[in-house]
């Protein structure tokens, strides 16, 4: 499957490629564009154009869009970007930009509709992965992690998200 990644760094992209290949259960092919943003404001400034450019001018079958939540509100399933209930949530902001652009696009020439997946990287979840890797105790202070867990999907639908939200504040760091 030819999948494009739009995220904040080549390191994020490399990790996402492994993650995505595991979820899909098939190897990924790179697309004809090398996508990257240099900052969160830059990420959002270019997102609409990236989506349109990949839609029109690339051979991608799917585009995966991931940004760090940093200190913003993690995504909740109760958010509805169409009703503006996820104000401040970057996941909802991405979904809103994509939905708006999708309404204005002309169909792709001789290609299927571009599938979109949106992800929000929450620092606490990244820290858990780090802890597990370094064989530290998985018992963390505060509320349990992974209230909703990671959503798995055997294939990407036309607009699907995978996410790992948590109650833990973004500023949390493991001790020692």
């Amino acid at each position, binding site marked *: 499957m030819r999948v494009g990644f739009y995220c904040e760094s080549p390191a994020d992209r490399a990790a996402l490629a492994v993650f995505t290949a595991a979820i899909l259960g098939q190897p990924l092919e790179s697309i004809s564009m*090398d996508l990257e*943003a240099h900052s969160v404001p*830059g990420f959002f400034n270019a997102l*609409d*154009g*990236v989506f*349109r*450019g990949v839609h029109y001018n690339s051979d991608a079958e799917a585009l995966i869009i991931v940004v760090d939540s940093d200190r913003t509100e993690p995504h909740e399933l109760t958010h509805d970007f169409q009703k503006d209930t996820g104000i401040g949530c970057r996941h909802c902001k991405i979904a809103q930009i994509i939905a708006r652009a999708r309404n204005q696009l002309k169909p792709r020439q001789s290609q299927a509709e571009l599938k979109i997946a949106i992800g929000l990287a929450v620092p606490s979840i990244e820290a858990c992965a780090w802890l597990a890797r370094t064989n530290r105790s998985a018992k963390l202070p505060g509320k349990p992690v992974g209230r909703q867990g990671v959503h798995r999907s055997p294939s990407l639908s036309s607009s699907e998200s995978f996410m790992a939200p948590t109650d833990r504040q973004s500023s949390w760091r493991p001790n020692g």
Partner: protein
Amino acid sequence: MCRWLPEYDHILFDKPGQGQKGIVLRTRKGGHRIPAKDLSQGTLVALALLTLAYLPEPPSVIGLEEIDRGLHPRLLRHLQDALYRLSYPESCGEKRPAIQVIATTHSPYLLDLYRDHPEEVVLAQKEGLEVQFKRLSDIAHYEEILGDAPLSEVWYSGVLGGVSVKP
């Protein structure tokens, strides 16, 4: 020069050695004489560009690599004006023929100044040892892709090309 380098008020000349001529800038405050060897790279680039822009008989083609080198981003509008003075002399009241200017840059700020002139921007896409050149205005759906975003951000994203691709 007053707009580009307001801290100086005069260009002077001296003879640093036998058979040599040197440029010296005089500071507006204090009248200090700063020889070219002690000037910043950006100041020297600015002097060179101003000299080119105001030559009575400039060459018909000018190639400039990394044209914004050492210049403060706020000077880039003046830089663009200087380039247009060469390329569109009639717009400055000059009667000499237009000059073909080919300049390279990696500056997102300079790129943003050409947002409304995509026909003047050529992106270089490096792939291994090969380079492909593509005029911005020739990219399919360019205006729709750009939308209201800064050109620099969209260029950096890679969706327009013009970024290095691993072989």
